[in-house]
């Protein structure tokens, strides 16, 4: 039982891309087991639901995979040539020396000093938040949007932690900015919808 739990923990870390070398190999070995795949599936369902409640549905992955395996087995062996410089589609134009090809910075919520979550502030009616965000399902308000216990932010602050819980009120302001924000001559179609919904943990 103990080793099973340890194994499951590897899957959890694999889902976050935080495994390497030996552990990565171990985790992949685990995935031949049905139970492991169920865990993998459930972990990702949880993540999806936390970010986007209407993705909360069971899916028939076992059946889907069976069919997929059969089809892949039918086709000629997959080329396992390591990635070569043949892009599927040219994403950027080579320009000058200043052009950086690698995406090497990910932005985050960052605090510079201790900070209390703004989630305690009621929505002020810039826009009907639930409506613009696409209505979180009734009762499915995520725990993270309710004000954390008073002590929690202080703990974060004391840790000097440069992190803040995402604020649903910020989403409201973002929407108001998109809708009423100053003029831009460069609105792509539905430019006012940009950033409307990003459902990955990344932004």
């Amino acid at each position, binding site marked *: 039982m103990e080793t099973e739990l340890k194994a499951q923990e590897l899957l959890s870390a694999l889902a976050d*891309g935080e495994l390497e070398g030996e552990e990565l190999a171990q985790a992949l070995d685990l995935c031949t087991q049905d139970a492991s795949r169920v865990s993998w599936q459930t972990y990702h369902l949880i993540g999806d639901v936390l970010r986007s409640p209407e993705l909360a549905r069971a899916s028939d992955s076992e059946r889907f*995979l069976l069919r997929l395996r059969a089809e892949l087995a039918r086709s000629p062996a997959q080329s396992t040539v390591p990635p070569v410089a043949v892009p599927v589609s040219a994403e950027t134009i080579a320009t000058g020396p200043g052009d950086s090809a690698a995406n090497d910075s990910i932005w985050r919520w960052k605090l510079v000093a201790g900070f209390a979550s703004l989630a305690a502030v009621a929505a002020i009616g810039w826009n009907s938040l639930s409506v613009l965000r696409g209505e979180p399902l009734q009762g499915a308000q995520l725990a993270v949007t309710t004000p954390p216990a008073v002590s929690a932010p202080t703990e974060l602050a004391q840790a000097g932690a440069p992190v803040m819980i995402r604020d649903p009120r910020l989403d409201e302001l973002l929407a108001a900015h998109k809708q009423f924000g100053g003029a831009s001559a460069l609105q792509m179609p539905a430019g006012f919808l940009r950033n409307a919904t990003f459902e990955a943990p990344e932004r």
Partner: protein
Amino acid sequence: MTDPTSAAPAEPRAPDADFQLVQRTVAGDQRAFELLVIKYQRRIERLIGRMVRDTDLIPDIAQETFIRAYRALHQFRGEAQFYTWLYRIAVNTAKKTLLDLKRNPVVYHAGAPGGDEDDETSRPRHELTTDETPETVLAAQEIAVAVNAAMEALPADLREAVTLREIEGLSYEEIAQAMDCPIGTVRSRIFRAREAISARVRPMLENQSGKRW
């Protein structure tokens, strides 16, 4: 108030969970690809469902999407994110299927040309696909409520860890800094949070998995 952000440090990059699996797939490990399939099946099927009216077509198009992705994976360079790349394949595959059906209407059994979303005169406003019925919405609600309840029931440190990971998208290293604990503790907390939530959710999934979705 001084501005400590004036010299912003280079942001650490969160590990790309997908690219690891892509690399393993290209190295010959199909199981790694299957993990990607499980991860994205739901989202891809929903995407396809938004483009194609007939829900019977969705699993077929989803299959073809993943097959095409698998076959083209050796060309994926990792400059874009895997999901973005997969997304494009799904959109193209759905579009291609619709065009094929248009050309061969005899083959198409599922009914009126309502399967083709481009004909906006026949169906001027998108409506829910047959799968996004009030019933399925309710079922989704049940699961979402369960996840929410499970989150609230978690001890604060577990909830915080899984929130920073799933909602804020921080890496384990960043979470370790934020929570002032070792990375191993972060990994353990996230795992235990997931297990606790899974316990509540799994029975529901088993009930529902009989349905299409």
